[in-house]
């Protein structure tokens, strides 16, 4: 994931296909599952439930992407499934190395927000959220 991107303009009928986002679906599920060990040690009820809710949000987002066809807004940047899958893989790599539930939760929340923008097909919003995600992932 780089700081700068140069993308072609999308044309009408350009779309992100859920089938091409399978790597992101799997990544989201893997990140949700990676939180399970935290539940084995977390003693605070509300914190444990918050972990459970975060996992549920990640699964819900993964489920939303299944079979989805996202039309890209024409004349804006042509975002591809590779861009989205790349961002997910980068996020997964960073988040698995992060210690502490709260820091992980912040980054995961930003990742879910990024995917909410992906669902809109609005490249401006997607790119904006991609940079916000990168900033969050780079933060210690």
């Amino acid at each position: 994931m780089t700081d700068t991107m140069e993308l072609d303009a999308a044309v009408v009928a350009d779309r992100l296909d859920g089938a091409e986002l399978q790597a992101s679906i799997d990544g989201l599920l893997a990140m949700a599952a990676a939180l399970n060990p935290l539940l084995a040690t977390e003693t605070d009820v509300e914190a444990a439930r918050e972990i459970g809710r975060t996992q549920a949000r990640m699964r819900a987002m993964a489920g939303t992407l299944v079979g989805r066809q996202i039309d890209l807004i024409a004349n804006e940047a042509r975002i591809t499934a590779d861009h989205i899958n790349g961002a997910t893989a980068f996020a997964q790599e960073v988040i698995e190395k992060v210690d502490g539930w709260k820091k992980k939760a912040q980054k995961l929340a930003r990742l879910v927000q990024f995917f909410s923008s992906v669902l809109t097909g609005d490249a401006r919003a997607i790119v904006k959220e991609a940079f916000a995600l990168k900033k969050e992932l780079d933060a210690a």
Partner: protein
Amino acid sequence: MRISSILLLLATLLSGGCANFQAVSEFAKDTSHLTQTVKQEFAQMEDVCVRQAEVVIVAAGIADDGPLKACRRYKAAQGRLAGVTLAVLDDYAEALAALAVDKSFDVSKEVQGVGKQVAGLKDSDGKPLLAGKEAAALTKIAEVLVNLGASREREAAVRRLAAEKDNLAVLGGLLRSFFVAPPGPARAPYANLVSLTASELDATQALLRGPALSKAEPIRSFELVRELESRRSLVARRADPGPNGVAQQMAGAIDAWLAALDRFGDEALSRDPKLLFERLKALRAKTAEVRDALHVLGT
């Protein structure tokens, strides 16, 4: 012409004109068994999705019913598409069964309205769920079934239905694609639903077994863990992508049906449909395998 020659000609004409409806009856019955098995599995997965969603909502204190909405969303899109496909195949089998015993047949309301249903099969963004070829196959078979009521000639009606082989093969392929995806990175809708279910099961159990909830609410946590545990083997078998997993077995049964369908087009009214019967036997064995697997899983 001698009397014996006339009698021989008459016998030949009579036997040639007397169609054998046994193959029609068998193909109808085995098609129904297959569609019932697929329906049973869809109903089971929906049930698992809802039950598990209810547990995670309680365990994690989720306020917005999100996991239940995910189950409903799946049912409204992929589930509905499968439902329409199965309804058309069911009516097709019923029409054949009725023709085999010379009884009348009523097309279900669902199939009568397939045109509208196909047009309405859209995802939550309003995008069509069906490719043009699949939508055309569904509507064509439904149209043939609706128009069949006017036919008084059994053999002609069976031939008309058998002639829909190519469109039926498209529906078989559509049904198969729910369980096993073609080669490529994407997984089948069923495989994704099972993955989500398995992930939810593991996470919810981890939450309930963790020190926080097991100490704060020991009895309820224990009960909910037991409830989830009862579904573990059911989900594991469905998550198995190998030959013993439900998805591959279901695909195997659909493949056997497609193989039988391929012969049905030619041998529907044949006096000795040897190859068709062989393929129907293979189909029965495959369907029984799936039914056994589902039964073992407690369905």
